[in-house]
């Protein structure tokens, strides 16, 4: 696509429920990143994909968080048994190769609210 698409744009869920956030990167971009932005905070790195593999999962805050990427394109970030502290905007970004070589293009984000 022309840009990075994320869905849903807004999600309100109850504590303890599972949520799935989707990212559709720019066509042809091999690198895909997930970041989290909490109120008043900077962007917190979660995970990076190169193709379908994730060389760096170091930012995932707990084992309730997981992500996958299929076909070198769409990625899904799953949060199991959501907690109130998971409330944040989840931003996805893609680049042609990796951030060291190319600038990241961000999606508009998915705002998650856990009640």
């Amino acid at each position: 696509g022309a840009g990075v698409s994320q869905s849903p744009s807004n999600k309100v869920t109850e504590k303890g429920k599972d949520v799935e956030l989707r990212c559709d990167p720019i066509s042809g971009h091999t690198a895909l990143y997930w970041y989290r932005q909490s109120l008043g905070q900077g962007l917190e790195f979660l995970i990076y994909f190169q193709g379908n593999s994730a060389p760096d999962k170091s930012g995932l805050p707990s084992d309730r968080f997981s992500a996958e990427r299929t076909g070198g394109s769409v990625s899904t970030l799953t949060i199991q048994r959501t907690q109130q502290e998971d409330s944040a905007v989840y931003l996805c970004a893609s680049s042609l190769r990796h951030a060291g070589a190319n600038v990241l293009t961000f999606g508009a984000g998915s705002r998650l609210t856990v009640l």
Partner: protein
Amino acid sequence: EDKVVQSPLSLVVHEGDTVTLNCSYEVTNFRSLLWYKQEKKAPTFLFMLTSSGIEKKSGRLSSILDKKELFSILNITATQTGDSAIYLCAVITGNSGYALNFGKGTSLLVTP
């Protein structure tokens, strides 16, 4: 632990003023520093700086990097209300050449 610190955290100016936003960093194996502008949700790219002392310009915005003193500044001249946004600074290091390490951002409000 790598650190990226932005200052001020927030700023209110009048239209027409000039502002300077700061970004300092303490990282190992520095590669590049980037500036992004975030208005609603999606941060949009402004500048990538790799070499010290070379100013990058785009219209009323300019930025420069000092690799000796480990900081960068982003200047905006003749500010307009449309410049109101959060300005994010991020550093790429050789440790993780694929992930940007972001500061907390500077929230700029330009009043008419």
